[in-house]
């Protein structure tokens, strides 16, 4: 039994001793994080923490209360239970309570690397040294290692434990006011090659000098994996959230051909290189979930509450987050991937020839008569979740492609674009043949993205406004 599961059982025992006839579930998350940030080619922020968070959910007499604490001594746990019991007695009624997860096997998938779990500040600093030296330009970014150990237990008899690791390096190289970037996440720090990433970022920065300003308009585009990661992140947040779907605020229509047939989207916490756990915050086992199959929308991500809201055949897909719906977004697929062409998912790593275009985008560039190569989409915000119209900007490198060749760097552009329309039937001209595993702003997870060749992208403003 792990220390985390012992803590979970201890809390359940304290709940039972109160005499309250309640359904109870406990989630214990232990996290060790080390993060080494660099800017202007030196380490300027370097932090580490070890934190245990205990979450208790109680449901009694039709009311629900959730509480967490980082205090794991006996006083801290006792006060957690007392506070939650007091709250559930006076909380407003909760008719949407979906009940506890019944006993079910939740198997880990070996996404844990002991060497990464033991990584020191010196090891992260060495990756940073490699990036900075290889870039040979002013550089900035971070190297991070994280270890997660979780345990879940409830009064219905479900219990589970798992652990995983992640290692990330994300950096830019800077020259004459333009930036180039490279990044990667893996479950193993050994996969993170700081020197290759630094060289790739520098190649982009060198190729971005003296950009031209292009007029706004619709351009054919090749999106590098880093830009595709933004598409997938926004689809995860706004498109495949079971909560927004239940409320009629998602674009998703199950069974409808909403995407080009070359688009297959899969949420897979166990894909190689992706840090994933075997169960979600409600103890539901996780599994590979096909959200879009050859252009047809098949599923959205559910927790128990959103599945109950939808009713019918809907079931939790193992996507409950700690804190439930307190963040307003509900269940979210945090390991979303776009399958590469050929339907195979090669292992990702920082490998291949260093160049202006990411190695996985180079083939797509050759098929463009006139268009733009885009490295990153930045500060993207949804104007309306139902239509998924998004505004944002390009970042870290844009180039004009003419007759299959990169001919000139381009200043950053602002866009206003419906993401589902960008991937609609007939709109996707090509998908890269390999995926890169990338960090996501969705928290504990990763995005698997190939490059993408799209028929049109709506740029609505240039550098001058």
């Amino acid at each position, binding site marked *: 039994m792990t220390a985390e599961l012992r803590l979970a059982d201890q809390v359940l025992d304290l709940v039972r001793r109160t005499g309250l006839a309640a359904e109870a579930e406990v989630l214990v998350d232990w996290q060790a*994080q080390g*993060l*080494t*940030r*660099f*800017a*202007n*080619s*030196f*380490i*300027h*922020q*370097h*932090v580490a*923490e*070890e934190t245990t968070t205990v979450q208790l959910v109680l449901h009694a007499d039709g009311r*629900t*209360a*959730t*509480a*967490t*604490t*980082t*205090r794991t001594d006996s006083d*801290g746990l006792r006060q*957690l239970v007392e506070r939650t019991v007091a*709250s559930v007695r*006076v909380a*407003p009624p909760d008719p*949407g309570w979906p009940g506890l997860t019944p006993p079910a096997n939740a198997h880990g998938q070996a996404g844990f690397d002991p060497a990464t779990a033991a990584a*020191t*500040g010196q090891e992260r600093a060495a990756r*940073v040294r490699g990036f900075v030296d290889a870039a040979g330009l*002013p550089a*900035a970014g*971070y190297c*991070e290692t994280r270890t997660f150990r979780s345990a879940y237990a409830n009064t219905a008899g479900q219990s589970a434990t798992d652990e995983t690791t992640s290692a990330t390096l*994300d*950096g830019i190289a*800077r020259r004459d006011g333009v*930036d180039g970037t490279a990044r990667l996440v893996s479950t193993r720090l050994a996969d993170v090659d700081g020197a290759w990433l630094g060289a790739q970022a520098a190649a982009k920065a060198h190729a971005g000098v003296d950009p031209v300003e292009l007029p706004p308009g619709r351009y054919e585009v090749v999106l590098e994996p880093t830009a595709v990661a933004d598409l997938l992140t926004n689809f995860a947040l706004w498109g495949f959230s079971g909560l927004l779907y239940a409320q*009629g*605020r998602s674009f998703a229509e199950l069974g409808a051909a909403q995407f080009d047939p070359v688009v297959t989207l899969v949420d897979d916490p166990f894909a190689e290189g992706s840090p994933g756990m075997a169960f979600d915050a409600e103890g539901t086992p996780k599994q590979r979930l096909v959200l879009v199959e050859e252009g047809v929308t098949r599923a959205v991500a559910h927790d128990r509450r959103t599945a109950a809201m939808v009713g019918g055949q809907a079931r939790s897909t193992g996507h409950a987050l700690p804190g*439930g719906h307190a963040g*307003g977004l509900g269940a979210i697929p945090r390991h979303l991937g776009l399958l590469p062409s050929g339907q195979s998912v090669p292992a990702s790593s920082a490998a291949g020839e260093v160049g202006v275009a990411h190695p996985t985008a180079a083939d797509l560039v050759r098929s463009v008569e006139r268009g733009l190569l885009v490295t990153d989409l*930045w*500060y*993207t915000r949804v*104007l*309306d*979740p*139902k*239509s998924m*119209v998004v*505004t944002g900007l390009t970042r870290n490198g844009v180039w004009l492609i003419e007759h299959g060749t990169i001919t000139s760097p381009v200043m950053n552009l*602002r866009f*206003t674009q419906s993401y589902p329309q960008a991937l609609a039937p007939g709109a996707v001209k090509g998908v890269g043949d390999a995926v890169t595993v990338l960090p996501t702003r969705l928290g504990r997870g990763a995005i698997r993205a190939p490059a993408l060749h799209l028929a049109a992208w709506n740029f*609505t*403003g240039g550098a001058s*406004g």
Partner: protein
Amino acid sequence: MSQFDVAEAAVQAALDAGARYADARVGHRRYESMTVRNGDVEALQQEESAGIGVRALVGSSWGFFALPDLSPRAARSAGTRATEIAQASAMVPGPASELVPINPVVASWASECEEDPLSVPLAEKGDLLTTATRLMLDHGADQAEGLYQIWDTTTWFVSSEGHRIDQRIRECGAGISATAVGEHESQRRSYPSYGGQYGTRGWELVRRLDLLSHAAELAEQARALLTAPLCPEGETTLILGGEQLALQIHESVGHAIELDRILGWEAAFAGTSWLDLSQLGQLQYGSELMNITIDPTIPGALGSFGFDDEGTPAMRRYAVRDGRWVGVLAGRDSAAVAGLDYAGSVRADGWARLPMVRMTNVGLEPGPHTLEEIIAATDDGILMDVNRSWSIDDRRLNFQFGCEIGWEIKNGRRGRMLRNPTYTGIGPVFWRSMDMLSSEIVPWGIPNCGKGQPLQIGHTGHPAAPARFRNVRVGVRA
């Protein structure tokens, strides 16, 4: 052993391990939030967090370590590990630098609070939101949401220079939103802003919002927006409501004047700034109506405190005066690098996070007009209010905002409601076009400002009032 003793043990351990400066924050925070949807409680969340974070300086390199354990042994371990991390940072060292000097302070400070928000019965707080959301459903909303949030944070700060400060800050706020869902899009209306209005106040802040009296109108407006005409495309005179202007200040002024961004310390993630320190004191940021202060002393505003997380006392200063850029948000290390003699804007999202340059209250001084006077003086324009979307480039220049609602302004009168209003521009061009500013200042609170890695959520205040801008591009759409 008191919290101060624990913090002092950590600082001493960091010094013993080789640090030339160290500070420690013992923190305790309670948080409570309730999310209500369509008359039912969707989430009731209560959190307690306690621990210690230690910052150590070795040469020019920082290290930081945090633990949720307040035993003396853990505190000493945290101090030692912070120094070890700083020593690892020296593998990729920066230029030598110092900290701008401040006087060591022994003090105690607490924010004003008439009615402890955590002591207000849950049932009462729940009744408020369930009643409001049912009202919105009754008046045409397809989805009705209500939210309140409460933070009660106490910090004990000790530095190797002799600081010993305890500080208790209570913050809370609430808001409601109505969404109407159409065939191809949804429309949302919120009061007083999406996610709510927040301050360093007690529950009296929420009572004064009077959520119930706005619920019906919100729902009716959301429904009406589904069939309202689209905001036209083109250049026009734009009037912004105070809530939207607060976010405009936050994004295009507040982040731009963060010294760590200006120095390139956030280049890879949050971005840099279009501002160049060589222009400080000379650059015309906006029109002469533009007077923006950095002021953590405003009673009740969300960015207020007695001391920042480096122990610098709260102090008011100008960021922009008569349209000219004159000040930045700074910390002790960034100010020293920049050759400035003031800090005071460094904060951390709890004990487990490294303090960094953050906005406090960054906002406008009052103008000479009222909103009604501005409307009456406008022959042809659009009034937009309450933010719906925001996006700005990594230098804080090129922005595009969407608002929940717009109104046509014709011949000095408010006309038709407009759907999907958006506007876009370049920061300094936009601010230089401001030709009317209201005196109706409200210290808007933003409780979700993301910055840093690991991501830290900051609480910022932005005094703002309605204002008018000329020749603004509006109606951008897909």
